[in-house]
C-alpha cells in the first residue's frame, strides 16, 4: 500500500489567537489519495478555505502535522527550494479571476509560474502552448484577459497552474463568482484534469451540485470535519447536511421530501438520472401492487 498523497494529523489553525478564541480549523485529521477528486463543502466560516491554504503552506498550522507524499511540511525546517517544490506540486486557483492574473497578455500570464521556477525558455513555450490547449484557450493566447469572460479568465488561471505541472490543484471557491455557464466550464475542467491527466483535485465549494461530482465529499462545520464519504454516503444523511448549514442537491432534496411524504424510495441518488430511475422504479412498484 503506497502512502497517501496528503496526510493531515490533528491540524488546528487560529487566525488571531487573542481575538478569535474559536480556531478556524480545529483538530482535523484526514488522508487524501493521489489522483482522487475530493470536494470540501461547508457554510461560510466553516474553515474549509483556511484548511486549503494550510496544504500549500500559505498558512502555517498552529498545531498538528501535514505530510505531502510522506514528507512533513514545516516552513521553519524547509529550504526555499523545498517550499517551492511543495507549492509547485499543489497549485491553487482562487475565487476572483481578476485578482490572480498577473500579466496583460494571456500567454504571458500562463508563463508566469514556469518563469518563476526557472524553466528554460523553449520549455516554457511548450508548456504554455500545451496548457492553453488543455483548457481550450489556445486561440486566445495573445488576448488581454480583461476582454475575456469570467469562466474564460478562470480557465486561464487554471492553465497558469497546469503549466507548473502540479500533482494536485486546489480550487478555492473558484466558481463562486461565475455565472452558470462559467461554473460549468470550470467544473468540467476539474473533471477532465482529474480523469484524463490524473491530477488530484480538491475543490472547495458551497454549491452542493458541484460537490456531488467528486469521488469523495468532506463536509466541514465549525473548523471540524463533520461528514466524510462518497457523495452517496454523505447525502444519505440529509439531517446532518442541513445541520452543517448546507442545502441538498436538488434531486436529493426531491427524494428526501418524497420520503417525508411517506413514499417508499429505496437507495439514494445524487444525479438527476439516478433520481429519475429511482422514482420510475417506485412508480412501477406502486402500479404492480
Amino acid at each position, binding site marked *: 500500500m503506497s502512502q497517501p498523497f496528503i496526510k493531515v494529523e490533528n491540524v488546528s489553525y487560529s487566525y488571531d489567537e487573542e481575538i478569535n478564541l474559536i480556531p478556524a480549523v480545529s483538530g482535523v485529521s484526514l488522508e487524501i489519495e493521489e489522483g482522487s477528486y475530493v470536494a470540501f463543502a461547508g457554510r461560510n466560516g466553516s474553515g474549509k478555505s483556511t484548511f486549503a491554504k494550510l496544504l500549500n503552506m500559505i498558512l502555517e498550522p498552529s498545531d498538528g502535522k501535514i505530510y505531502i507524499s510522506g514528507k512533513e511540511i514545516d516552513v521553519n525546517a524547509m529550504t526555499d527550494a523545498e517550499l517551492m517544490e511543495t507549492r509547485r506540486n499543489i*497549485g491553487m486557483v482562487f475565487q476572483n479571476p481578476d485578482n490572480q492574473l498577473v500579466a496583460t497578455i494571456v500567454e504571458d500570464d500562463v508563463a508566469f509560474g514556469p518563469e518563476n521556477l526557472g524553466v528554460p525558455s523553449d520549455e516554457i513555450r511548450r508548456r504554455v502552448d500545451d496548457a492553453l490547449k488543455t483548457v481550450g484557450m489556445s486561440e486566445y493566447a495573445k488576448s488581454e484577459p480583461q476582454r475575456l469572460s469570467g469562466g474564460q479568465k478562470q480557465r486561464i488561471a487554471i492553465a497558469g497552474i497546469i503549466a507548473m505541472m502540479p500533482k494536485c490543484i486546489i480550487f478555492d471557491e473558484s466558481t463562486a463568482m461565475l455565472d452558470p455557464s462559467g461554473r460549468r466550464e470550470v467544473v468540467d475542467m476539474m473533471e477532465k484534469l482529474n480523469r484524463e491527466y490524473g491530477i488530484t483535485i480538491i475543490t472547495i465549494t458551497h454549491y452542493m451540485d458541484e460537490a456531488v461530482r467528486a469521488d469523495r465529499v468532506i463536509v466541514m462545520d465549525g473548523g471540524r470535519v463533520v461528514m466524510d464519504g462518497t457523495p452517496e454516503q454523505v447525502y444519505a444523511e440529509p439531517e446532518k447536511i442541513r445541520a452543517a448549514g448546507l442545502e441538498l442537491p436538488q434531486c436529493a432534496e426531491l427524494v428526501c421530501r418524497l420520503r417525508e411524504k411517506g413514499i417508499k424510495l429505496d437507495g439514494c441518488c445524487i444525479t438527476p438520472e439516478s433520481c429519475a430511475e429511482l422514482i420510475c422504479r417506485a412508480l412501477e412498484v406502486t402500479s404492480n401492487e
Partner: protein
Amino acid sequence: MKSISLGQYYASGSILHKLDPRTKVLLGMLYIVCTFLCKNIIAFGLLFLSGILLIAIAKIPFKIILRSLRPIIFIMLFTVVINVFWTTGDRLLFSWSFINIYAEGLYNALFMAIRIIMLITGTSLFLTYTTTPIQLTDAIERLLAPLKRIKVPVHEFSMMMTIALRFVPTLIDETERIMSAQKARGADFSNGSLVKRAKALIPILVPLFVSAFRRADELATAMECRCYHGGEGRTKMTVTRMQGSDITALFAMIVFGTVIVLINYYAAKYGIGYTM
C-alpha cells in the same frame, strides 16, 4: 467592456515595431541627444526630414502624430514668443518702442520649435507608438540589469510597473462601478463648487482604496502560490535577441548624430547658413 488603450501603441507591424524593445529605448535616447546636437539651419532641416522619414518607416498616420503634439502647443508658443522678443543679435528687423525683433530671434524660435516637435515625435515614435508598455518595462529591466550588482531593485521595479499596468483597466472599471453605486444613493458629482465636487470624490476614493488593498493581498497570495520569489533564478518565455536589424538601426542613428556634428562644425567654419 470598453476598450482602454494604455499609451498610444499603434499596431501597424512596421520594421520599427519588430525591433528589439531595448534597441528602441536606446534609439529614443540617442535621438534626444541628436535633437540637442543640432546648431545649424542645415542640421535642423535634416532633423526635420529624419522625423518625417521615421514616421513614414513606422507607418503611423500623420493625424495621430499631430494629435499627440496638441498638448505641447502652449509650451511651443511660449518658447517661440520668448525667443522672438528676447533674442538680441546684429540684424535688427523691426523696432517699436521697447520691442526689438532680430533675425536671430526668428531663427532661434524656429529652431526651438523644430527641436521640441522632434523631441516629442521622436521619443513617442520609438517608445510608445511602436512599443507596448509591457515590452517597454521589460526592456528597461534588461537594460538596467547591471545595476542589480549595486543592489538596485530593478526586477521589483519592473514587476511593479507590469502589475500597475495590468490593474489600470480593472481599477477604472471598479471606479465606474463605485460611482454608479454612489449615484444610486443620491451622490452628485457634477454640480456645485470645486471644493464641493472634490469632497464628493471622497466616497469614491475610500472604497476604491479599500478594494485595491484587498486585491493586492489576494494577488500576492496567488503569486506566492505560483512560486514567485523575486527575480532570482527567474527565466523568461520570450527572450528577444539583438539582431542584424537592431545593430543596423543603432548604427544608422550614430551615423546620423555624427553627420549633424560635422554639419555644425563645417557650417560654422565656412559660415554657411545661420548657426545658433
